[in-house]
């Protein structure tokens, strides 16, 4: 089988990438599940699409906008990409068989996965009733089963908050949301709408220190943590519950990327990409949460549109510059995407980055060849919230050194 652009993953990133790429090339969209939409299909709450569509949609509605626009795209469902080689030949497995596919360009859009209780080293037993938030959400919203009755949630990121509300609406008792950091991880609007409105207590600087229960979860020990996030023994107490929901972070899913030999960024755990979302391997692009974990699906879609457009260009034989200028993460910046500027012809480039520490009254700055070329005021920047800096493409096209920094306003 041959195609121009193969998109791996039919979630928000893959959908937008396919929608964009098909305007210019023949596109095949490969999805391992039985339907398109990825995580959006289980996100039945609203709040998606404020940026792109100017209205708050539910997850399935947001997905539908893109799915409707896929006409002409070959969609392979229930199909997994097992391998990619350097010549962009892929090995696929699905109900139609195990077969090879050759593409002129490939877009990686596999999304991310959830961290488990092991990855944060919660000790204890291994009973039924311990779920990651995404799994619990799928169980209720798609499979139609209720994971539990008395719930403890660890992690106050948006997924954890949304699940606190969802479980409450389904009649479960959420005993509390526990957060190891001294500040909540999710958006303020979610703290208000998901916890305050339902009188669900939020315990900051607390964590789960042991899982108890032989067959089904019987409860968890929780404790306050000190400045170094070490549990304080004297504050340890038992919270009876039959379900523990873990919303303790997401990791870009780059098994395939790694196997293919594409360069990964050790901070984002995703591939290093340039301003056109191309990875270190020519003709292989990446977008969405596979590159770095986003806060908003709108940003995922935007990155995918760039990837779709540039991948189609590549498939059509257009040559691009490869200047390979690294974007440096300067003062109070943990990472920046894109990590590389190659000097593509682009009208605009948005730098996405996360800060190391919370700061108020700051300017975010683009520095090119030692000069400040763009500045933007921000009232507050904090590690859980992604920061954007949109600049004109020509500002960096011929740069020899680029960095992004966050500075306090004097």
């Amino acid at each position, binding site marked *: 089988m041959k195609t121009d652009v193969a998109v791996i993953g039919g979630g928000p990133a893959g959908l937008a990438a396919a929608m964009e790429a098909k305007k210019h090339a023949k596109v095949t969209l490969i999805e391992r599940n039985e339907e398109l939409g990825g995580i959006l299909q289980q996100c039945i709450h609203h709040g998606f699409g404020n940026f792109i569509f100017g209205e708050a949609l539910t997850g399935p509605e947001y997905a539908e906008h893109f799915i409707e626009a896929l006409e002409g795209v070959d969609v392979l469902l229930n199909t997994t990409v097992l391998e990619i080689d350097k010549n962009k030949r892929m090995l696929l497995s699905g*109900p139609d068989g195990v077969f090879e596919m050759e593409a002129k360009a490939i877009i990686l859009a596999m999304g991310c*996965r959830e961290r*488990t209780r092991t990855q944060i080293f919660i*000790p204890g037993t291994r009973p039924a009733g311990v779920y990651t938030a995404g799994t619990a959400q799928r169980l209720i919203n798609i499979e139609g089963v209720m994971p539990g009755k008395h719930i403890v949630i660890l992690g106050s990121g948006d997924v954890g908050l949304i699940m606190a509300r969802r479980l409450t609406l389904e009649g479960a008792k959420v005993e509390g949301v526990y957060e190891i950091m001294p500040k909540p991880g999710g958006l303020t609007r979610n703290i208000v709408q998901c916890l305050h409105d339902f009188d669900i207590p939020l315990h900051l600087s607390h964590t789960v220190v042991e899982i108890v229960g032989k067959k089904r979860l019987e409860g968890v020990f929780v404790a306050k943590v000190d400045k170094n996030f070490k549990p304080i023994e004297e504050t340890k107490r038992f919270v009876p519950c039959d379900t523990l929901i873990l919303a303790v972070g997401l990791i870009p899913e780059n098994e395939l990327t790694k196997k293919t030999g594409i360069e990964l960024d050790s901070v984002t755990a995703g591939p290093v990409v340039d301003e056109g979302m191309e990875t270190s391997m020519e003709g292989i692009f990446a977008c969405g949460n596979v590159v770095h974990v986003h806060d908003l699906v709108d940003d995922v879609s935007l990155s995918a549109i760039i990837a779709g457009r540039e991948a189609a260009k590549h498939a059509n034989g257009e040559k691009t510059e490869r200047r390979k200028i690294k974007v440096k993460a300067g003062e109070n910046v943990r990472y920046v995407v894109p990590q590389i500027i190659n000097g593509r012809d682009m009208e605009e480039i948005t730098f996405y980055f996360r800060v190391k520490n919370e700061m108020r009254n700051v300017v975010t700055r683009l520095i090119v060849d030692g000069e400040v070329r763009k500045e933007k005021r921000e009232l507050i920047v904090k590690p859980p919230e992604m920061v954007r800096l949109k600049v004109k493409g020509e500002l960096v096209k011929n740069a020899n050194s680029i960095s992004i920094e966050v500075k306090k306003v004097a």
Partner: protein
Amino acid sequence: MRVEKKVEKYAKRRGWKVKARTEDGILYLEGEVPSYKEYVEIGRYAGKQKNVEGVVNRLKYKGKKEEKRKEGRNEIIGEADVVIIGGGVTGCMIARELSKYKLDIILVEKAEDVACGATKANNAMVHTGIGEKMGTLKQKLCVEGHKMYEELSKQLDFPYEKNGMWIILTKDSFADMPIPSFLGNFIARFIIPRIILRRAKKLGIPMYIVKRKELLKEEPNVTSRALVAVYSPTYGVTSPYLFTIALAENAIDNGVKIMLETEVVDMITEGGEVKEVVTDKGRIKARYVINAAGIYADKVAEMAEAREYTIHPKKGSTLIFDKDYGNYIKHSMTILKFPRTEHYKGGGAMLTLERNIQLGPTLMEVEDREDTSVKAAEIEQIFSHFSLLLPDLPRKGVIAYFAGLRAATFTEDFIIRRAKKVRNFIHVAGIQSPGLAAAPAVAKMVVGLLKESGLEMVEKEDFNPYRKANVVIRELSIEERKKMVEKDARYGKIVCRCEGVTEGEIVDAIHGKIGATNIDAIKRRTRAGMGRCQGSFCLPHVAKIISRETGIPLEKIKKNGNGSNLFVGKAKCLLEEKNEN
């Protein structure tokens, strides 16, 4: 001094009231000690005495739980020449061995599957016997059992590899001993390897010394403090649960009846013989009974009025690493550290067949026979101990941890013999490491004991030694994979992305000889859920497939046995409950 007096004196000096009594080589302890710790301490002291064949520890202590036995059911549900109690690797190996003979055999297991106790929670090593105490029964059986694996794995189609093992001595090997470091290093480098080699020669185990430079060339991630290694090329690794399932399936093919979720609660004895085994499902008439009940072997022996030992569980916890670190080491390895902890090989970095590194196991006395929790302190202990071996193995590589309970007796060696006073009851107790490696030899020994006790054993002409495993799609060539998908499209659909398990394989497991109808049983048979996401993605899919194939409603699917329901009901069930109230 007589053993009883010695033990009583030991207790008296510590202010504990203990009465000791010996009968037929069995030492019985009665009285009271302050806590479980002392209960274990004196039991171990008693177990070390010469000519003690078993220690029955009946000491009371504060907080000791009184046990309630489950109710038995009265109806007769079976009759057999041999009833085997326990479906771990030992029980299933015995069942398979006995199925070569013209005998009616019933194996009863209280859990919902075979291999659910210590079998599933050990580190899969098929030891050669070099790590065991010289002259022990367990060493003898380990050496013999290890040699039988190759043939068994061919007959029964379960995975087995001789991946080899490093025994490594480092500058830390004698660091805790009260001797100068130059002397410790000298002993570690020149004396210990030679002692090991001499033992290996005696046991017929091929081993050789590897110099530091060569070791570090071969294993660059091993600590640079390494001094020398002894390499054992024939050290094996298997999958303990796949092996046990293979044994059970082959036993079934040869006429053995396996009764799962059947718990032995009592025995009916008469004139020094067991007549019937009483279970929570009904009574089974038995001519001979084999006690392979693992962690509960002493309780089962008590039911037969043949209590000759007490089990004190020793927990072992293990960390499992992502297979991304599969090439971090080439072979399994252990570090020798002195002084040696009694009855503990020390664990190591052990590679599974799928090349997941396992760090551990630890060693910890626990009172509760179901306590398989992994404590924070154990996790830290594992990291700090094994950083002496692999200093840079990153914490973030861990994908899971688990614990198992070793069914240790106070005499520590295996107890495989006819009961002293019950004619038709055979103990196969105290089976801890190297119980997996020894299992084939243990089963042979049990055949001998049955013959000795008068059971007539005639070999079957139609015994079928072969059993075929289900297909493992990820291990096939592309051409073979294509053929499988043509045959059945479900072999194309990948359900567990981390381990590459297809829907077809899950369906095969559900409809296997011992059908897997819960998440963990599927996991053991197919690896679905064993990878880095630990089932976050595949759990809903696997549950749905089980439901579809078995007709069990989705909301009733379990993680493993009774009480492990994954869900409380259908969505909206709690709202309906509220409305009703």
